[in-house]
């Protein structure tokens, strides 16, 4: 098919994924605050001012109209809950909840309804809803607009959780999430949105399977596991390590729930060492979960205890001098690897 190099940004790739789902399935709708913008003003010549806070839904309202691209009031309990109901009653909503910290407003709908209805009702209701939420500290957004919070969602049986790490995975996972008949949460890192990946993204509507991790660099000396933004951190740390003569393998987690135990464990069993890099708070985190997985199921293969490099157990500060210390740096990861190997 298309053999040309077709680089898209992280945001463009997501946009393309959403658009392809909307074209293919009329029951797909998009909802959220300013997913288009300037609502109700098209006749005055104003339309699609934002296209989503990060322009991920830009251009959709022109193609699909106001009945399928719905700007909402600032009422997360209302519109996230309405997404659950719409899904139960036959639609396939994509609900953008903007920054993941706003889960504080709509937690009831996600945790008590979205995660549980299928189970509580004996499997007789399906909820093909996708929630997308933006994560990560990206330069002075402070404590409430910089969080990651993967583990809160992954804690709940009934929710699937995926985290793209580059444009290619962003499009493939977006499509897979929106096609899935279970509720899926997609975490989109704001730190990836400005990155020039120069990565080819196919035009066709490909899917990446939910529940599969991917090896982005093979190696024999140590396994690095990254999640979303931190996959890049791991790749850069692996480059540092290569300069020092170490051959690191980098696993890009992609899926938090379900976990791809097979890929993770076979990598760890091969390299016998693992460093897990997570920008989320450390306690009861995905990093802890992966560490437990390694300890429980690869113990006999390990030459050293699993190591986690995470954000500290502290909220995210505003000032850049502190914010940059909150995020696991390439140096911290490199150092942690050297520690584990020596």
């Amino acid at each position, binding site marked *: 098919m298309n053999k040309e190099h077709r680089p898209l940004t992280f945001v463009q790739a997501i946009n393309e994924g959403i658009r392809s789902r909307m074209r293919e399935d009329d029951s797909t709708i998009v909802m959220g605050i300013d997913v288009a913008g300037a609502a109700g003003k098209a006749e005055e010549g104003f339309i699609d*001012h934002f296209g989503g806070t990060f322009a991920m839904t830009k251009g959709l309202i022109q193609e699909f109209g106001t009945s399928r691209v719905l700007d909402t009031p600032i009422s997360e309990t209302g519109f996230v809950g309405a997404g659950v109901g719409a899904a139960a009653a036959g639609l396939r909503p994509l609900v953008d909840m903007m920054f993941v910290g706003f889960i504080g407003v709509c937690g009831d709908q996600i945790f008590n309804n979205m995660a549980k209805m299928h189970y509580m009702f004996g499997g007789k209701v399906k909820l093909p809803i996708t929630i997308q939420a933006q994560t990560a500290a990206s330069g002075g957004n402070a404590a409430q607009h910089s969080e990651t919070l993967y583990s809160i969602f992954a804690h709940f049986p009934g929710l699937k959780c995926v985290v793209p790490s580059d444009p290619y995975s962003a499009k493939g996972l977006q499509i897979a999430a929106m096609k899935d008949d279970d509720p899926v949460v997609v975490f989109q890192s704001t730190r990836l949105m400005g990155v020039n990946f120069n990565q080819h993204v196919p035009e066709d509507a490909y899917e990446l399977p939910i529940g599969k991790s991917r090896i982005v660099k093979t190696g024999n000396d140590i396994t690095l596991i990254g999640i979303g933004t931190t996959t890049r951190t791991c790749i850069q740390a692996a480059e540092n390590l290569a300069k020092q003569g170490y051959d690191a393998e980098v696993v890009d987690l992609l899926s938090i729930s379900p976990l791809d135990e097979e890929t993770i464990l076979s990598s760890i069993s091969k390299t016998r060492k693992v460093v897990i890099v997570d920008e989320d708070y450390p306690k009861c985190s995905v990093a802890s979960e992966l560490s437990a997985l390694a300890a429980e199921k690869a113990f006999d293969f390990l030459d050293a205890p699993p190591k986690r490099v995470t954000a*500290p157990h502290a909220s995210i500060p505003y000032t850049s001098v502190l914010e940059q210390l909150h995020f696991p740096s390439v140096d911290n990861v490199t150092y942690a690897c050297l520690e584990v190997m020596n």
Partner: protein
Amino acid sequence: MAKSQSSIPKEKLMWMFETLVLIRRFEEQAKREADQGRILGTHSAIGEEATPTGICAHLRDDDYVLGNHRSHHHCIAKGVDINEMMAELLGKATGTNKGKGGTMHIADATKGMLGANGVVGSNIPVATGCALSAKVQNKDNVSVVFFGDGASSQGSLHESMNLAAIWDLPVLFVCENNRYAESTPFEYAVAGQSVANRAAGYGMPGVTVDGQNVIEVYEVAGEAVERARKGDGPTLIEAMTYRYHGHFGADNPMGYRTPEEQKYYEDKDCIIAMEKFLIENGTATQEQLKAIDDDAKARVEKATQFAIDSAYPDPSELLSDVYIKYP
């Protein structure tokens, strides 16, 4: 301007003018800091100075104010030090929050400013709780929460209004209706086209006021504060106002509103109107008002220099203030 101005003491009138101007000059400087890339951006309060000014004119240090993401004007009107505010914007250790909170979280408990808040609608129940504290302790202090037209769609407002009404709490719910939530028009998002009308459902007074007219705001707020202090319960005030700039940072509002609309509000500018009023009323001369403006500019310049000269927080601050004691 308004009718019963004669009853307003001269010092109050002058304080209100000084406050309007100080907010305007501070916000202009904050915008310059953002435009020049020294900070990420702020939610500019330019155009919306009159609402907190007219309300805070009635408040004491032991009254509470709680804000939202657009709160620099609330802070200044409540008496928060502008040196510390500017230092906070620049992320310095001398800032109101030691550089940890930034533009959306400025707080100074010593001035009764219990914080700006970045989650829309989130502070409304908190303000209700401050009022509950006053009531339980038999104190006569009041609590004021500022929120936008967008926030009026959050359940937190409705739950709080109900609580405050059944318990007769001394709280003012103040909606700054600047007609937009990001780019979403009020007309689209607020059913019934009125926030103030919603008070009726909770059996409390709901008043709409011209938020570009500080004297009118002052008068409406006076009644509401008195009612609250006497223990007669909450009031909902909807102040019709306008932000002159985009929602945040570099947002260009011309993508969702017309230059004519913008001009209509700029012609009603709260500072120009107050200037005219004070001169016509014989309260102050043009020269006196100009001196006040010059003073505000000098204070903002000093605050900026203070912020620039201040040090960044020590790296150890990353882990302080998470708890008082842990474990």
